[in-house]
């Protein structure tokens, strides 16, 4: 495909024996490379420093997750959903649980929804911190990496206190979350949210007005409105191009209609706009988290897990005393079946629209679980944005598209 490219020059513009033109170079940015976006391979055809063609090769992290769902069953697949977009594991859990709840026709109690919103927004902050840190270090702002990971460590501590694990928590179940949020964790989250907006201001002070950051990102990787929609982009990539689409507003889930937040939208659609959108989203996520903590205070003592014994495990104390609950426990663990049919549940993850299409034939053996990964569409857009630009712009474009290979390859 790339061998057929030829260089066309106007007669008289290039001297026939000019050594600088006339030869294309194939550069392999191999599956292992320091731009810490995972195992992505780019086959680049260069004319000097200008990119003529770039072909992404994915699949170096394909672990067969969709096949795994068919083999393991609906409940045991929850641990695998964490490892999809591994910078925000709880968000994937929530998306999968919501798809299953749509198919099962299950309603989540309010406190369960509030806890899910809190976890999803903390994960969104964590994901955007990874974006900022890794894109910063790719473009030379090494300090950003350490600053952002410092903040991410604080979020890890909160999640460690609540779920018991720093990442890949798997704390969401069909019908709600695994356990309630304690007062101490609530206070810790409040403490984090008090200091976090000042940190975001510090990040902005370092980057937003920075001449180098501006020059590396302004007018680089410009994505028009129509192109963004045609390439199936969503999330900050779409909003950076001026399309005001946020699934939390357009198709509210988990009680998002009751939260007060703004949706930042860009104008030009270049890397700088996408950067501004994500930084502002971090602030808005902190705002939503504060409202979620207030709601947690109001719903104290409420149920966080639905009661439907076809899908939700009964509490262990009841299992030990009641025969009926023991049978429910046994049936759910060994043989949980979802009603026949199919359902698509999608949420607004930090990368875009993360959706799960779950199809069941009524038995406990899943028929199909397709993971609609936003990062796959983000990778697809790389050639469109990078063609004709310099090689160093490619690094900025990859960083600003913000994809995670666990999700791309599944």
């Amino acid at each position, binding site marked *: 495909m790339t061998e057929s490219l030829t260089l066309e020059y106007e007669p008289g513009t290039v001297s026939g024996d000019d050594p600088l033109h006339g030869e294309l170079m194939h550069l392999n940015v191999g599956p292992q490379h320091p731009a810490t976006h995972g195992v992505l391979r780019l086959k680049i055809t260069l004319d000097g420093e200008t990119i003529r063609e770039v072909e992404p090769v994915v699949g170096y992290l394909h672990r067969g997750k969709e096949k795994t769902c068919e083999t393991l069953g609906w409940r045991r697949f929850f641990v695998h959903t964490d490892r999809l977009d591994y910078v925000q594991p709880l968000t994937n859990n929530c998306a999968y649980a919501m798809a299953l709840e749509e198919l099962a026709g299950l309603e989540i109690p309010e406190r369960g929804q509030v806890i899910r919103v809190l976890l999803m927004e903390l994960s969104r902050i964590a994901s955007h911190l990874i974006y900022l840190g890794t894109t910063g270090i790719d473009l030379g702002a090494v300090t950003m990496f350490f600053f952002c990971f410092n903040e991410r460590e604080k979020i890890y501590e909160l999640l460690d206190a609540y779920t018991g694990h720093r990442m890949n928590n798997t704390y969401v179940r069909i019908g709600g979350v695994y356990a309630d949020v304690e007062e101490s964790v609530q206070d810790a989250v409040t403490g984090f949210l008090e200091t976090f907006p000042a940190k975001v201001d510090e990040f902005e002070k370092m980057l937003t007005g920075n001449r180098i950051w501006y020059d590396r990102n302004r007018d680089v990787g410009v994505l028009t409105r129509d192109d963004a929609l045609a390439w199936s982009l969503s999330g900050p990539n779409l909003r950076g191009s001026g399309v005001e689409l946020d699934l939390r507003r357009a198709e509210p889930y988990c009680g998002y209609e009751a939260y007060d937040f703004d949706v930042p939208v860009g104008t030009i659609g270049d890397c700088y706009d996408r950067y501004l959108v994500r930084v502002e989203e971090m602030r808005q996520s902190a705002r939503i988290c504060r409202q979620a903590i207030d709601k947690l205070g109001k719903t104290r003592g409420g149920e966080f897990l639905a009661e439907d014994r076809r899908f939700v495990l009964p509490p262990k104390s009841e299992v030990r005393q009641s025969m009926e609950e023991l049978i429910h426990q046994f049936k759910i663990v060994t043989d949980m079946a979802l009603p026949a049919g199919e*359902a698509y549940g999608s949420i607004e993850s930090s990368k875009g629209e993360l959706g799960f299409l779950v199809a069941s034939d009524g038995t406990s053996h899943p028929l199909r679980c397709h993971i609609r990964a936003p990062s796959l569409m983000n990778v697809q857009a790389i050639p469109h944005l990078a063609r004709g630009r310099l090689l160093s712009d490619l690094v900025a474009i990859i960083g600003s598209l913000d994809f995670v290979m666990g999700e791309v390859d599944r």
Partner: protein
Amino acid sequence: MNALERILSALGDPAPQGSTGRDGIPCLEIEAKDARRTIARLKSACGFDTNTFVTAIDRFPAEPRFELLWQFRSLVHGDRVRVRARLDAGPEGPRAPSIADLFPGAAYSERECFDMFGIVFEGHAGLKRLLMPEEYDHFPLRKDFPHQGIEPDRLYREWDRRRHEKPAGSAT
């Protein structure tokens, strides 16, 4: 009128079979040969400007075996539609029309369907495997493919053997 009625009236004749799924998304059932025409009309007349996914379900052992699913979303109207078509595993394997020229974002999804199910998309420029290595022989998401795979290390063994067969003098 609800989303399904709006879509069916905008599509005009001949209208495909439609229903609303459990998740509230309208579903259209069409023949594989009408897929391109229907999807082009969905784009031009019904306002569906972005493709969400292209995927397939293997309904082995029922015939026709593969069920191809497309899903689209409309920014203007704010609703979605899911289109499904059953594919016969013909003499050369299942074939379907490609929509990658109408929706460039569907290109990778179609390559993935080819990789995982073996469905060949006619008209797709550059249809090759996406997730498995290019020389891989099997289609993993088919129901008759075992979960642990068939000789998963075959390609690696070939590479290792080729490395050992290099002429003396080059680095091992």
